[in-house]
C-alpha cells in the first residue's frame, strides 16, 4: 500500500569489450549473449520499466568484473512512502480475516516467470528454462498501483495486501493465509493470458503486475467497480478461512490440501558445511615513478571509476518533481554517490539514497568487503547531508554455490560482519534479499567445459532523511579560492582496490595485494557526526566521499565536476600511508573530501576538533590540476580529465 517515490538500479556486468563467446552446451549451439549485449538489454529494461511507471530513477551504479560475464547481476529496487496511519489504523498492520475474499488484481497469468525464483538461484547451464523470465508491462502496474494507493487505500477496501513476486499466488496466498489460519483457492477462476495452462503453472507463475488482496465480502462490490472503472482487472479466486489448511481446487477437483503448519514450517533444515580457505595474494611490485599523472589519468578512464552519464540521462529522474541532488551533478556532470529528493511535495524534508559494493575486496577478505560496503554506503549518505542516526540499510547477497564449503564460509563471514558493523553504526538492516548459485557452467569456443562463478557480491543500499533538503551538498568544487580539506586517515590499503586491479590487468597477473581497507567504526563515527554538523551549519561548499581509486579520484571528480582546477599537497596526511602511491590511490575508508569558503575555514577547523584531517590546498581558477607530495606528483588539467572521465560513457552512448 505504499506509493513508489524512487527507483534504484545496479548492474554487475562483464567487460563490455569482451567478445569471447560462451556456450551453454557442449555442441556449441546455445550461445550466450556477450556482456555488451547484456548491458544494452538491462539498461533498456530499466529504462522501459522505470520511465513508464512514473517513478524517478535516481540512484544507480555500474560495476564491471570479468567474472560477471557468465551470470550478470541486475539489481533494481523501489523506495516507497506510506503515511504512518491511514483511517486511524497503523498502515503497516495488515491481517486477512476468515471469510475475506481472496482477490487477485492487475495482470493476467501466463507461462512467463514459471520457476523464476528458483532460476535466479541455480547455476546457469544448458537446462535453464526459457520461460523463467517474466515479461513486464509497466502500464498495467501503473494503473493497478494508482487505483490501490490513490483510492482503495483511503477507502479502506481491503484487510491485507501482498505483491505477487517469487512463487506467484502460491506464495502470496500462503503468506496471507498465515494471518487468518487458512485459505481455499479455485484456480480455474484466475484470469489467464491464454488458455491451457496447467493448474500447477497457474499456482506458481510469476507473471508480473499482480497483487493479492483480502477483501471483506461486503466491500467487494465497491472494490470491483472501482477497479473496473480504473481499467484494472479484479477477480475473486477463493476465500480466506480459519480451517488450518491451505486447499487448492481446479475445476471442481481438490488438487492440494496441506496443513498450514506443514506448509510454513515443514521443510527440514538442510545442514551445509563451511571450510574457510586461506587467501594469499602476491603484492604487486611498485616502482617509484617520476610522477603519477599517467597513473591517475589511466585510473580515471577505468569504467568502475569513470562516469556513466549515458545511463543516467536515459532514466527519468525528474518525474514527481522531487529531485534535488541528481544522478549527475555540476558543470562536468559527474555521477553522484548519493542522491537527495523530496518525497512529499511541500515538505522541506529530503530523503537521501546511496549504495556501495566492493566485490574485489572479497578476493582478500569477505569480512572487510562487507565492512567497507556498509561504511561507504553510510559515508556517501553523510557526504550529501544525511543523518547518521536516521539511516536504514539493506543487504543484497549474491553468492555462489552453497555446496562449496569455502564459498559458504565467506558467506558466514560476511553475515557476521554485517551484524558487527550495522550494530557499530547503529544502522538497522530494514530489508534484504539473497540469490545463491550464481555460477555459470558451460563451454568455451573450443567446447572445453568452463565454470565461471561470480565474485561473492554484497550490495549495501542505504536510505536516510535530512530535515532541510536545501542544506544538501553536492560533490563538485564550487568557487576558486575555497580551501580543500581531507577528513579521516589514509593508510596503506591498496589491496583489492582499483589501482592494484589496474596494475594486475596491465601486467597480466593476479597480484592484487592483501592490504584491503579496514573499517574503524569509532573513528569514522566521529568524522561522520562532524560532517553532519558542518552541513547543518551550512559551512561546506562541496563534499565528496572518497571511495574507488582513493583520494586521487575524489580530487579529480570534484575538480572536473566543478570545472575548476586545484592545487593541493598530500605531504602531510593523517594515517600510516607513506608513499605517494599509497596517498593517491589507497582506498582507506572513513574519508570525506570537502571544500570550504576561506572565511569559514576557522569555524570548520573548530568543529573538526576530534577528527583527523589535513588542509590540502585550494580550488583554483585556472584549469590546472596539481598534486604535490615531497615533489610534484600529478600535473594535468581539467579539460583533459573531463574528457577522460566521460570517454567510457561517450563510447557506450
Amino acid at each position, binding site marked *: 500500500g505504499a506509493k513508489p517515490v524512487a527507483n534504484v538500479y545496479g548492474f554487475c556486468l562483464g567487460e563490455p569489450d569482451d567478445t569471447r563467446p560462451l556456450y551453454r552446451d557442449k555442441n556449441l549451439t546455445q550461445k550466450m549473449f556477450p556482456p555488451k549485449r547484456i548491458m544494452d538489454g538491462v539498461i533498456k529494461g530499466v529504462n522501459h520499466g522505470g520511465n513508464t511507471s512514473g517513478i524517478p530513477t535516481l540512484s544507480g551504479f555500474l560495476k564491471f568484473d570479468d567474472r560477471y560475464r557468465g551470470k550478470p547481476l541486475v539489481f533494481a529496487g523501489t523506495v516507497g512512502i506510506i503515511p504512518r496511519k491511514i483511517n486511524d489504523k497503523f498502515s503497516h498492520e495488515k491481517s486477512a480475516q476468515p471469510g475475506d475474499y481472496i482477490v487477485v488484481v492487475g495482470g493476467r497469468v501466463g507461462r512467463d516467470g514459471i520457476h523464476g525464483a528458483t532460476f535466479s538461484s541455480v547455476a546457469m547451464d544448458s537446462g535453464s528454462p526459457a520461460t523463467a523470465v517474466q515479461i513486464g508491462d509497466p502500464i498495467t502496474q501503473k*494503473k493497478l498501483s494508482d487505483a490501490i494507493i490513490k483510492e482503495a487505500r483511503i477507502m479502506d477496501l481491503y484487510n491485507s495486501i501482498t505483491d505477487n513476486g517469487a512463487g506467484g499466488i502460491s506464495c502470496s496466498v500462503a503468506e496471507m493465509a498465515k494471518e487468518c489460519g487458512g485459505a481455499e483457492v479455485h484456480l480455474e477462476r484466475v484470469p489467464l493470458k491464454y488458455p491451457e495452462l496447467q493448474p500447477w503453472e497457474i499456482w506458481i507463475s510469476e507473471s508480473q503486475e499482480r497483487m493479492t488482496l483480502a477483501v471483506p465480502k461486503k466491500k467487494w462490490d465497491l472494490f470491483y467497480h472501482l477497479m473496473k472503472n480504473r481499467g484494472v482487472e479484479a477477480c475473486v479466486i477463493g476465500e480466506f478461512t480459519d480451517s488450518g489448511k491451505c486447499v487448492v481446487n481446479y475445476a471442481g477437483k481438490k488438487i492440494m490440501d496441506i496443513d498450514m503448519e506443514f506448509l510454513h514450517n515443514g521443510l527440514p533444515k538442510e545442514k551445509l558445511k563451511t571450510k574457510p580457505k586461506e587467501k594469499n595474494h602476491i603484492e604487486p611490485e611498485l616502482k617509484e615513478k617520476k610522477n603519477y599523472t599517467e597513473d591517475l589519468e589511466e585510473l580515471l578512464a577505468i569504467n568502475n571509476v569513470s562516469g556513466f552519464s549515458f545511463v543516467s540521462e536515459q532514466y527519468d529522474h525528474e518525474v514527481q518533481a522531487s529531485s534535488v541532488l541528481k544522478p549527475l551533478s*555540476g558543470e562536468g*556532470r559527474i555521477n553522484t554517490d548519493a542522491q537527495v529528493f523530496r518525497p512529499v511535495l511541500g515538505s522541506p524534508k529530503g530523503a537521501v539514497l546511496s549504495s556501495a559494493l566492493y566485490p574485489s575486496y572479497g578476493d582478500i577478505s569477505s569480512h572487510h568487503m562487507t565492512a567497507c560496503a556498509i561504511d561507504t554506503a553510510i559515508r556517501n549518505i553523510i557526504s550529501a547531508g544525511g543523518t547518521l542516526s536516521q539511516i536504514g540499510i539493506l543487504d543484497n547477497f549474491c553468492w555462489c554455490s552453497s555446496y562449496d564449503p569455502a564459498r559458504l564460509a565467506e558467506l558466514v563471514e560476511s553475515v557476521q560482519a554485517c551484524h558487527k558493523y550495522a550494530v557499530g553504526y547503529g544502522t538497522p538492516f530494514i530489508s534484504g534479499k539473497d540469490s545463491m548459485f550464481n555460477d555459470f557452467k558451460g563451454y568455451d569456443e573450443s567446447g572445453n567445459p568452463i565454470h565461471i562463478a561470480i565474485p561473492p557480491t554484497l550490495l549495501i543500499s542505504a536510505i536516510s532523511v535530512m530535515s532541510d533538503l536545501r542544506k544538501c551538498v553536492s560533490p563538485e568544487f564550487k568557487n576558486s579560492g575555497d580551501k580543500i580539506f581531507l577528513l579521516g586517515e589514509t593508510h596503506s590499503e591498496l589491496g583489492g582496490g582499483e589501482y592494484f586491479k589496474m596494475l594486475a590487468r596491465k601486467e597480466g597477473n593476479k597480484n592484487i595485494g592483501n592490504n584491503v581497507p579496514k573499517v574503524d567504526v569509532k573513528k569514522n563515527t566521529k568524522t561522520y557526526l562532524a560532517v553532519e554538523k558542518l552541513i547543518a551549519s551550512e559551512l561546506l561548499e562541496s563534499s565528496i566521499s572518497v571511495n574507488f581509486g582513493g583520494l586521487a579520484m575524489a580530487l579529480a571528480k570534484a575538480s572536473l565536476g566543478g570545472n575548476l582546477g586545484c592545487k593541493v599537497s598530500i605531504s602531510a596526511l593523517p594515517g600510516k600511508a607513506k608513499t605517494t602511491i599509497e596517498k593517491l590511490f589507497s582506498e582507506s575508508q572513513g574519508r570525506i573530501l570537502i571544500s570550504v569558503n576561506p572565511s569559514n575555514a576557522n569555524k570548520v577547523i573548530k568543529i573538526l576538533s576530534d577528527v583527523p584531517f589535513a588542509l590540502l590546498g585550494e580550488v583554483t581558477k585556472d584549469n590546472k590540476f596539481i598534486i604535490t607530495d615531497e615533489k610534484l606528483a600529478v600535473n594535468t588539467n581539467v579539460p583533459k580529465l573531463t574528457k577522460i572521465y566521460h570517454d567510457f560513457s561517450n563510447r557506450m552512448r
Partner: protein
Amino acid sequence: MKTKKSKNNRIRILRPKVMVLAGYGLNCEEETKYAFELSGGIADIVHINDLIAAPKMLFDYQILAFPGGFSYGDDTGSGKAYANKFKNHLERELKEFLMGDTLIIGICNGFQIITNLGILPGGLTYNSGGKYLDRWVDLKVTGNSPWLTGIKNITLPIAHGEGCYMIPKREYAKMKRKKEIAFTYEKGEISKFQNLPANPNGSSYDIAGVLTYNGRVLGLMPHPERAMFAEQSPLWHKNKKKMKGAEGQGLLIFKNAINYYKNDK
C-alpha cells in the same frame, strides 16, 4: 466562486479552477496539481473515466491540464490512444470548452495527446538521438500567449523519448507569423553550464512548444512543474546563496494562467 467584473468586461476569478487529467499511465498529475495550487488555483485530479461518466463537469473549470506520463505505455505511439479515447467520448465537450475563455496546457505526454486530439498542429516523433533523454534545456519565448506573459527566457527539464517536433515549412511560417511558436530551444545558461547542445531531440526549427486558439492552448515538451522550486535546477548547488528564497522558473507559467483570471487587465 468569488468573481468580479474587470474593466474589459472579463469576469475576474480570484481562485480559478483547474482540472488535471489522470489515468491509463499519465503520471505527472500530482506535481502538476501542486504547481497550480502553489500558484493560487484550485486544482482537481480527475480520472478520464470519471470525466466520461459526467462530461458536464468540465464546465466547472477554467483551465484543463493534460499532464505528462506514458499514457497506454506509448504502445501505439505516444499520446494516440488517450487522445482517441478523449475524442470518442468528449469531443463535443472539448469544442464547447474551447469556445469559452478557457486555457489548456499539454505537457510532454500531454502535448503529444493534444497534438493527436487535433487542437495543435504538427506532430511528435522519436528523438533524433534515438534514446529517451532526461536533461535540462534553455528556452526562448517566441509566442504570444496568456501562459507566457512576461517571460523571455526560461530553463526547464525535459524527459522524453518522442519529443522531436515536426511541422511542414509552410505551416511553420504561418505559425511564426501568428506568434504561435511558444518556445524554441536555445543555447542558454544550462546548455552552456553543462556543455550540452541546445536542441535535445532534433525538433524542426528548434521548436519546444506551440500555441493555438489565440495562445490559450499551449503544448510543450519541457516540464515546467519540475522546475517549480529553485532547488530543482542543476544550477542551484552552485548558486545556492544567490537563489535563496527564489522560486523555480517553471512556476511562472502556472502563475500566468492563474493571473489570467485573477488580475484586472
